[in-house]
């Protein structure tokens, strides 16, 4: 089936070439970091996780988001999603590849990475995160490939593959739960030390992942003559709306706990993220515009979708705009605010704002480009099979 990715219109090759440029830039930046050290990033002694880990956290959510397509189709037999479950599975594959690359970019001794397996440590949540991520990656490769092969041959998928499909459902929940547990169980990190982190991660994942899939569908409708159908888009829009609302609800609960209890540790990060944190006469607020963009984009995206639903005028343009807003909004929330906001007050009560360096941004863009490169190839294969079956 791989040959399907090798034939395409000039626009297809153009897109891959653009991604290729970013991949090369990222590779060069990574080589620099590999030779010189992680000191080339904006991280430091008191702010020792940064852009890489926050991208990782967000992308785990994107990977888990595919669940919102797989579950209705396989568990509730919701036929309208039949054509797009494969898109969810392939998105999960490329998102997890990005996650793994971000982890490798972040660790100081990448060549010792296998120590995680040579010295397995069940009391570390990072160990379990590795287990569930590799497990989910394997499951999606198996399910995606086998089901697509069966579709191409126009036979029913073999029975055994359903076993893997059904375990992939709890696995999708587990990858984001365990990723949340990386943060939730750390004494002294007040912003993260809350049980709502895991459900909040899941809620935003179930909005951001499907939003990206909808965007991909709408793009492919224009450029690749692949229409998933109005019903499917409509239903995903409903799912995205609920998930976004639940995420917003959880954010408001965080505000209540912080500002009603008046416990400083619970207020600091929220204050920094949304209003600016004053310390010794200086106001630290470099994430405030991003966080308000998050709030406005989520509310705005919800408003657009609600308007479309009520007026029954859910046009492609409107859905695309809403999904882009929600995806970007949730990215700002989880891919920037969550990690950097949680670290702004160091254990020694100094304030450190994060500023990524150019080299670090180069690596980050390179990894995103690699992920989208893989995603493009996989979607091209999936569409190629669809078109072959149709004709």
């Amino acid at each position, binding site marked *: 089936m791989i040959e399907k990715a090798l034939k395409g219109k000039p626009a297809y090759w153009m897109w891959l070439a653009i991604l290729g440029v970013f991949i090369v830039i990222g590779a060069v930046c990574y080589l620099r970091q590999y030779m010189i050290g992680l000191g080339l990033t904006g991280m430091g002694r008191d702010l020792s996780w940064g852009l890489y880990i926050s991208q990782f956290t967000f992308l785990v959510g994107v990977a888990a988001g595919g669940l919102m397509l797989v579950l209705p189709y396989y568990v509730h037999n919701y036929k309208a999603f039949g054509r797009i479950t494969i898109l969810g599975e392939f998105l999960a594959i490329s998102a997890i590849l990005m996650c793994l690359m971000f982890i490798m970019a972040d*660790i100081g001794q990448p060549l010792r990475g296998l120590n995680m397996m040579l010295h397995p440590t069940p009391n570390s949540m990072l160990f379990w995160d590795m287990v569930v991520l590799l497990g989910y990656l394997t499951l999606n490769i198996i399910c995606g490939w086998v089901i697509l092969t069966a579709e191409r041959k126009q036979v029913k998928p073999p029975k055994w593959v359903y076993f893997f499909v059904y375990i992939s459902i709890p696995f999708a929940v587990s990858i984001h739960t365990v990723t949340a547990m990386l943060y939730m169980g750390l004494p002294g990190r007040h912003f993260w030390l809350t049980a709502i982190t895991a459900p909040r991660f899941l809620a935003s994942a179930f909005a951001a992942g499907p939003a990206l899939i909808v965007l991909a569908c709408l793009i492919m409708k224009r450029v690749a003559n692949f229409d998933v159908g109005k019903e499917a888009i409509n239903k995903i829009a409903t799912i995205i709306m609920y998930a976004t609302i639940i995420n917003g609800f959880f954010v408001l609960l965080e505000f209540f706990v912080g500002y009603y209890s008046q416990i400083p540790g619970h207020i600091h990060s929220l204050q920094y993220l949304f209003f600016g944190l004053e310390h010794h006469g200086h106001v630290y607020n470099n994430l405030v515009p991003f966080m308000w963009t998050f709030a406005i984009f989520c509310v705005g995206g919800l408003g657009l979708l609600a308007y479309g639903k009520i007026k029954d005028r859910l046009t492609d343009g409107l859905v695309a705009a809403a999904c882009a807003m929600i995806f970007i909004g949730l990215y700002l929330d989880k891919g920037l605010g969550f990690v950097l906001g949680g670290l702004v007050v160091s254990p020694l009560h100094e304030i450190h704002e994060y500023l990524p360096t150019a080299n670090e941004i180069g690596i980050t863009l390179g990894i995103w480009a690699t992920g989208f490169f893989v995603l493009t190839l996989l979607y091209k294969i999936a569409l190629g099979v669809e078109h072959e079956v149709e004709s």
Partner: protein
Amino acid sequence: MDKQRRKFLKIAGATALAGVSAPAVVKLTSSPSFASSGQGAAADSHSTAKDAGGAQHDVGKKSIRYGMVIDMRKVYGKPELMQKAVDACHTVHNVPDFDKPENEIKWIWTMPFENVFPEHSSYHTSKITEDNEFFALCNHCDNPPCVRVCPTKATFKIEENGIVAMDYHRCIGCRFCMMGCPYGARSFNWFNPRDHIKVYNPDFATRTRGVVEKCNFCAERLPLGKEPACVEALKESGALVFGDLNDPDSEVRQLLDENPTIQRKPALGTKPSIFYIV
């Protein structure tokens, strides 16, 4: 032909997967690893059951538990004396010297009271806490979160003496321990440290770029009958007293008997082994 190739690929793939995951499975199912982790868990639940607050310590355990009492009264107004202890430690352990604070490596250092004890509230800061800096170093917790989160056991508690130690050769540099530590006691080698060592001490290992390091309570000096370098440097003043907290006759225990002491962030249940007389 095609079929054979597919079959070969399937078998090769399965073998590779099994090969990669085998060490992990073998390690996890072998009994010693399970026994030790099980024991730790049992001891833990025992101690939390005994005191709901979690701030109390297990007293009277048979094994050694090294700890330190920092008698700040003896160094008030003497910042140069405190600096002497810091320098002694950093020289003995080949701790590199970086200019920028974000790249800094430090095992023991001094900081204002509000940073070392950020959860301590007061209506009016006393002159002593206003004018003096306080020592900060690894607390060698009895219940260390850094050890709990490390994915490779590169940081671990030595059960025989309670020291929280590091294996610089196993550390992958994920910095999860720095997230877990509520005291900011750990430093990461953002650049090659060997270029920044002022005076090289051949008796102690230098570290490589990309690993975490911190105070090791001079685990390498204790078997030689020496006290920790910082303690030795301040011997005359008696500001730093090191010893076995579980030994009722030790000097640290005497000090704890005679003086009220405070600890950093006791509410987190980490059970630090460093006590401050302020």
